């Protein structure tokens, strides 16, 4: 049984990610956001469930599809938006953009523009914690495509031989851009790759917030016991193409419909209504609050100043 508070918090996050991405796509179409933008739409339950099961002191490592991880970890929406708009008030002073947001205040070690490159970074964070004798778990997010980068196997093995507190969260959304996982792996059950390395590995329904939460909580407990690493494959599907400008025509309609019928946000709302007996009005209030914070953040980002070119050049000279 979950407390109403827990389910409320989770739903708030699910809804925050959903509305953030939806709103940002509008901003992108308006030309206010430039460069790369990989929406997390349809995968919200993974970041939300995983992060809800972690402690503040734990680390997460994100990906190029990283807004959801940021928000679930508690990032400030307005600093995220400011970054996406390339403003000085953004998480990276406008220097990183969507693919490079990191938030050390929430131990989010950052997104990455190189698919798979974050996996060893997270293993190193866990290694450092072990050396310092600190009880910290590192949850490393990555997707099916990254599982074909050799560092996945290498880094998982490092975590295994050093018994590191690492949760490898494989967000299997079944595509790397337009390439279906079936075309680049004999088995779409990527968790099986962990078994040969002696790593406890399993799959979960990535659209079910509570299943993700439970399995992550159990995995984190094992990691704190020195029984890590753990490979958790969360099955999911994108609601959009790979990036904002990808119509995603290669995604079969029936599959997309199936996953949309299992919309993680809807599922989360139902848990709140049924399990926690929240009233529709309560849910509306939560949603309204999220939307208001988002609009304020958009205003903040739009109004806030761009970084100074002069200061930048000065800094480069003195580097």
């Amino acid at each position, binding site marked *: 049984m979950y407390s109403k508070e827990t389910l409320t918090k989770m739903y708030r996050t699910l809804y925050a990610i959903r509305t953030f991405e939806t709103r940002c796509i509008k901003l992108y179409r308006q030309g206010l956001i430039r460069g790369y933008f990989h929406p997390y739409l349809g995968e919200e339950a993974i970041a939300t469930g995983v992060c809800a099961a972690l402690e503040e002191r734990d680390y997460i490592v994100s990906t190029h599809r990283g807004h959801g991880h940021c928000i679930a970890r508690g990032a400030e929406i307005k600093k995220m938006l400011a970054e996406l708009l390339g403003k000085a008030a953004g998480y990276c002073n406008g220097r990183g953009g969507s693919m490079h947001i990191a938030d050390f205040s929430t131990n989010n070690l950052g997104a990455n523009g190189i698919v798979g490159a974050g996996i060893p970074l997270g293993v190193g964070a866990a290694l450092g914690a072990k050396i310092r004798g600190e009880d910290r778990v590192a949850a490393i997010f990555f997707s099916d495509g990254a599982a074909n980068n050799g560092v996945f196997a290498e880094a998982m093995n490092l975590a295994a031989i050093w018994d590191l507190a690492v949760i490898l969260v494989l967000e299997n959304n079944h595509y790397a851009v*337009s390439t279906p996982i079936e075309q680049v792996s004999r088995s779409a059950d990527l968790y099986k790759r962990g078994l040969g390395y002696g790593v406890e590995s399993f799959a979960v329904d990535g659209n079910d917030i509570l299943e993700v939460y439970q399995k992550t909580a159990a995995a984190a407990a094992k990691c704190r016991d020195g029984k890590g690493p753990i490979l958790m494959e969360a099955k999911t599907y994108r609601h959009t193409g790979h990036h904002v400008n990808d119509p995603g025509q290669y995604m079969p309609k029936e599959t997309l419909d199936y996953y949309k019928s299992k919309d993680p946000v809807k599922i989360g709302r139902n848990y709140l209504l049924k399990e926690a007996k929240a009233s529709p009005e309560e849910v509306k209030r939560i949603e309204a609050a999220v939307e208001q914070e988002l609009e304020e953040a958009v205003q903040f980002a739009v109004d806030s100043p761009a970084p100074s070119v002069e200061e930048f050049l000065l800094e480069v000279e003195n580097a």
Partner: protein
Amino acid sequence: MTANTKTELAAATGRNIMLRQALNEALAEEMRLDPKVFVMGLGVAERGGSYKVTVGLLDEFGPLRAIDTPISEPSFTGAAVGAAITGMRPVVEILFVDFSLLVLDQLVNQAAKFKFMTGGAGSVPMVLRTQGGVGNGLAAQHSQSLEAIFYHIPGLKLVVPSTPYDAKGLLKSAIRSDEPVVFMEHKLLYMVEGEVPAEQYLVELGKADVKRSGSDVTLIAWSNMIPRCLAAAEKLADEGIDAEVVDPRTLVPLDKDTIIESAKKTGNVVIVQEAVRRGGVASDIASIIQQEAFDYLDAPIKIIAGKNTPIPFNLELEKACVPQESDIILAVRSRVHDKG
């Protein structure tokens, strides 16, 4: 038939196509001519490539010669080397030159050295197509100019085309080369149009092209810095400064003769490079010129290059990091003043 500017113009039939189409034609033509040629990379088959360079190859040549790969750059590049060693002519695409940093063991330790290490018995006729430079807000891991790394490695050829005509003729020559070739495209040039003759032709590797001849100053540049130099040269002409623009087109082999000749003629050299100044190819070309044309130089060789920083996301900051037309104009002006 190999070509230079004059024959280019002669050959040109007023047919204007985009650089990415020119590359596509080069691939299709060579694949028709030689069954050993095949392409592989991320999304090159079904998607036709992220920049549409390989569109249609899957349909015409089938899945064995247009191969989509997993995100396993080191290994599919290594597989290309292995295929080349055993008689194929692979054309591998590494989506961004930034990702080529994942494949340098296979490219530098294996491909570049294989022929040498085997006493000449083996050879690696492969092309690694990749794409670099600053785009529009792609940030630090998708905007690098890394030609200097390949330039330093014995055993690799390095092609850096600036026009559709050159791109097509050079890619065809690269595919026919028996040594590994790194073919560096620029993301901002794919949709640039230019004249490309209908009939087949080659552009020889190692022949520079004087894109504009002039007498006052020599501008040396390649890839996306060529259009900027040419635009700057036109503006400078209005001020009575007559700039020559030399495009090496291939950095390895480098056409030193054409470069030295121009330097001796104008006595005044500006090298324009998008990559960061420190350790860039421009420095090497400058070191060659000062050695070969020391007594002809009226002033030190000037290098205009990218700033010593990763590329920022913000568009204004990004712009400030790489040479713009105005930077070139200012540099040449001050240079001509230094002289007089």
